[in-house]
């Protein structure tokens, strides 16, 4: 691997015991580090044998690496149990409390979700900027046209109800009140963008807890020989 490739957090080898020093305060955003106890009596090779089928998914490459496994995924399938984590390494280690499967998983998608609220706040700001621009354009146009506009102004047609609908009791349409037609034009609003920013912030929190919990459950089940 070349020196320039190492500079990227995505191309650097994932190692469970050696997090990148300069990113350690923020890489929890896209990185999961955890461990699962290995059932007593299971050797390292047997433990890895039991976990390996989780990686038997389309577009997934993995390799045994001493007492561990490393994997990368290109475009994981939607139902792949590790679809959120495109890269990771697992290692069986002997600790004071017994054997554990220690792992470090990396998720670009989680980082994407983390950034989304900012992106949508940006979209909100863009909407407001465009609205300001349009308002200025409309005012300039209004000034230029001046009195001409008053002549062109025409009454809005009054909608009438068909006799069938009258008979069935549908409410009759109302004539718009003075000045209402102007206010009925859709005003650009950043609300939708801010709502989505909030949704993605919430979803990030959900995913940051849910996905590691699901992975932990999967590994625990596999090690126990279930499913």
């Amino acid at each position, binding site marked *: 691997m070349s020196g320039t490739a190492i500079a990227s957090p995505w191309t650097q080898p994932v190692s469970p015991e050696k997090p990148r020093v300069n990113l350690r305060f923020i890489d929890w955003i896209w990185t999961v580090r955890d461990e699962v106890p290995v059932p007593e009596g299971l050797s390292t090779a047997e433990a890895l044998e039991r976990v390996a089928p989780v990686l038997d998914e*389309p*577009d997934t490459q993995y390799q045994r690496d001493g007492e561990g496994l490393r994997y990368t995924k290109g*475009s*994981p*399938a*939607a*139902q792949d149990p590790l*679809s*959120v984590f495109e890269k990771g390494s697992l290692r069986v280690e002997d600790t004071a409390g017994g054997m554990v499967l220690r792992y470090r998983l990396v998720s670009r*998608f989680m980082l*994407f*979700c983390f950034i*989304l609220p900012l992106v*949508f706040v940006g*979209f*909100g700001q*863009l*909407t407001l900027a*465009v609205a300001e621009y*349009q308002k200025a354009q409309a005012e300039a146009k209004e000034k230029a046209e001046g009195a001409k506009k008053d002549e062109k102004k*025409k009454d*809005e*047609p009054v*909608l*009438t*109800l*068909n006799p*069938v*609908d009258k008979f*069935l*009791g*549908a*409410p009759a*349409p*109302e004539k718009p009140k003075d000045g209402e*037609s102007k206010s*009925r*034009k*859709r005003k*650009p609003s950043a609300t*939708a*963008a801010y709502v*989505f920013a909030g*949704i*993605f912030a919430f*979803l990030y929190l*959900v*995913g940051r807890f*849910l*996905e590691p919990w699901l992975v932990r459950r999967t590994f625990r089940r596999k090690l126990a020989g279930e499913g």
Partner: protein
Amino acid sequence: MAGVRVGNRIIGADAPVTVGWENLPKVEGGAFKRAFFTWFQPVTFFGFLLFWYYAPNEWAVASTGIAIGIVFKLVLLGLEWVNPRHRSWQLTWKELVTDLFYVGLGYTVLRIVDQFIGSDAIIGMVQNNFDLAKVAWFTGLPLLLQAFLISFIFDFGQYWMHRGMHNWYPLWLTHAPHHYITQLNINKGAVGNPVELFLIGLGIGGFFDFLPRAFLLAGTFGLAVSTYQHINTRFNTPRWWRFLFNTTEHHSVHHSQDYEATRSNYAGTWIVIDRMFGTCVDGEAELLGMEGGRRMHIREVMHYPFTEAWKTIKAKLGRGASMPETAVPAE
């Protein structure tokens, strides 16, 4: 794989497709569950129609429609959870975030673009230059007839736009990313390249602001029929419904990995339009997508039409003759 002959075509030769309503599974479970998933669709459909027909004028506004739409989609997400059509289409956290990202684009960036060159610009032109008194003959028709005509004519246009996307390479490039979805869920209709979402969005959205009740009634066909295209829920859909309206079964055939099957069921709401033009295939499929079910990254969805167009142009000009063609036309 042998496939099944439907008209002049063999459906299911490349990938499994179940053809014929009689071959599809029914809702399983207790009497309440079976009744619920048999009556849910028609009851909500007629319920919405009645609501918009009789709602007081102060309720019959866009914001009510948006609120109903959001609540209804949340209910449908719940139904996907309770009674999934296929376990292999279960909504995951990643799929939900991905789908909502595209939904969010539709509510934000695409709205801005629409103001300049899309539906809002067209509507503004109509509002400023067209005398509504000239269409008084239409607005004087019974409300339900107006609603039917608005929905049907709009869907007729969408049918040909969609069919065009499957038969004309430049349009296909914008639509192809949508065919890389590998499962159906409520918000999957929004997944696709923004250029396609913009083309499809050249519809009635903006009309809501100045809009008569008939358009709100017409919106019911979109909400209570078209939404089911992408749902992962097993229903015992009534016979008359699946004859007239599009269903998730029809749409799963359209999204299947079988090439011939994808060239069917183009309508968004009125599947009867497909019946009129001989492109309807009744059935369902579970294995969806392209290239054997490869899931396309958001990044690739965004650049696909442009990079594929560039590759094609380069190949045609002879400089990239050895380059493999990755976008199969009209699939």
